[in-house]
């Protein structure tokens, strides 16, 4: 099937005796927003880490477009057009917003092993960095040092940096975590907008946001894939309700 952009086959990751990701086989379709949900410790973040190359799998394979990327390091995966944001804010704290996005944008400029040309003369990088900032709504903060911004803004910066790398596929690990309602709404809108021309794999706990954006849902429990389907299918699934959604609803 040509509209599958990324797939994992029997992917698993062992930490000592614990199977963090347990033989997960998932297809991610082009242009969809594919949300992965599950209780804490279900292995969602580990899965993202495997996809982005931050972790090497114990077994199984990962395919992106026509290529196997199972053992590729994060930098090469990024260059293939897979961008990611982190659950725990992962930025350059002592850089300004613009500089954060600058470094992201510069990575698409071919090799940066250039020693004599001033970086500031790379016009395309300006464009990318500013576009990233603009899309994430941070244009006014361009010259603020990242560590001086609020937590929510740092989360936005996280996304802005990812966008500055102009990825095709976005791996978003709880982008709404720690955000206020207003910011969360903004970011949800942004994800919606991004979904128009990007494939998105999203981990999120905020169920309102999840159902607002999801095309496909995968439920993970204890590292294994419990079920994959449309939001309606998942809502209707008995197994999911028992294992997860039911409890979650009960909490509300």
């Amino acid at each position, binding site marked *: 099937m040509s509209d599958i952009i990324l797939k994992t086959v029997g992917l698993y990751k062992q930490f000592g005796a614990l199977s963090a990701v347990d033989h997960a086989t998932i297809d991610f379709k082009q242009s969809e927003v594919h949300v992965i949900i599950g209780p804490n410790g279900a292995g969602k973040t580990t899965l993202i880490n495997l996809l*982005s190359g*931050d972790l090497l799998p114990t077994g199984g394979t990962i395919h992106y477009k026509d290529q196997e990327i199972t053992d590729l*390091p*994060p*930098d*090469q995966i*990024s*260059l293939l057009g897979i961008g*990611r944001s*982190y659950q725990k804010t*992962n*930025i*350059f*704290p*002592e*850089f300004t917003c613009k*500089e954060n996005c*600058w*470094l*992201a944008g*510069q*990575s*698409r*400029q071919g090799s*940066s*092993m*250039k*020693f*004599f*040309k*001033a*970086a*500031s003369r*790379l016009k395309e990088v300006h464009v990318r960095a500013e576009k990233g900032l603009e899309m994430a709504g941070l244009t006014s903060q361009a010259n603020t040092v990242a560590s001086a911004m609020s937590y929510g803004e740092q989360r936005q910066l996280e996304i802005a*940096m990812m966008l500055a*790398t102009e990825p095709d596929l976005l791996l978003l690990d709880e982008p709404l975590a720690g955000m206020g309602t207003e910011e969360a709404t903004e970011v949800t809108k942004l994800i919606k907008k991004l979904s128009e021309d990007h494939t998105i794999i999203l981990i999120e706990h905020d169920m309102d946001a999840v159902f607002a954006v999801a095309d496909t849902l995968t439920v993970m429990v204890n590292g294994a894939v419990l079920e994959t389907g449309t939001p309606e299918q998942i809502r209707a699934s008995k197994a999911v309700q028992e294992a997860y959604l039911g409890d979650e609803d009960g909490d509300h």
Partner: protein
Amino acid sequence: MTQEKIMRFILIGFVAILAAGPLYLETYYTELFIHMMVLGIFAMSLDLLIGYTGLVSFGHAAFFGLAGYLLAIVTPETEPTAIWISLPVVLAGCAIAAAVIGWFSVRTSGIYFIMITLAFAQMFFYYFNENNDLGGSDGMFISNKPLVGWGDFQFLDLENTTSLYYLVFAGLLASYFLLRTILNAPFGQVIKGIKANEHRTKALGYNTQNYKLVVFIIAGTMAGFAGFLEAASSGIVSPGNLHWHHSGIVIMLVILGGMGTLYGAVFGAFILTLLQDKYTGMVELMPDFMSGMADHWHLFQGIFIILVVLLVPNGAVSLLAKISQALGKKEDAK
């Protein structure tokens, strides 16, 4: 005046003082200044690693010392070797050494990086220390200074202290501007990113190991350049130049001056050398030198270092910055 302008003013003043050096300095101080400028280049090259890339190398002296030995090896006893030949050979040798050491070292990080660079430097140290053909622990002499010229035509006579001074001065400025350029280039952005957050830099699509290796080679080669100048000016090379104490001292210069500014490293070299020249190593022998505390200058050096670490962690440049900030505010108030 803004803080930045004041800093620039200070720097230009500093360069002017250096440029006029031989006009007002006695021979001894001219040579001391040469030594300090060489140390400044050496310290800047380490600042590139420590202050900009976040790689704490505890074996940087290996390149400094290796360069001296290479110069000694390519200089025959009977005649000088043209600088056009010896310098490239020395720099290439240091670059290769840095590539090999770097290839091993950049795989590690943190404390392990510190220790593995130390280990490699120690290997080099012991190699030269125990190689009788290269003078063993006593070191070797370089009988002839590099020839700046072609055949019989001599463009600069390095036996002349003033000529040597300006060669080293030019080397200092060139090194500074070269590093500035590199730091402003795309490459510089990446290594700063590595220092700030290596993991994120990698996730953005940079093969950080390659960048670290390249920066290690650049720093090692520049340390070699400093070592070349040192050996050319002093005419003697010895394993002491590769000793871990020497690596430790250059780290101290960088911290004392202020990391991540380049010129801070040069200030560090000047401040420490001048202090040492004035106060340390001198043992007052009369009337009763043994009771005089000057004999215990190591004690004071140790206390000085600890006080600097505890009280001025960001180095002399941070003090200057504070002063110029205060001045800037005063100006604003007017």
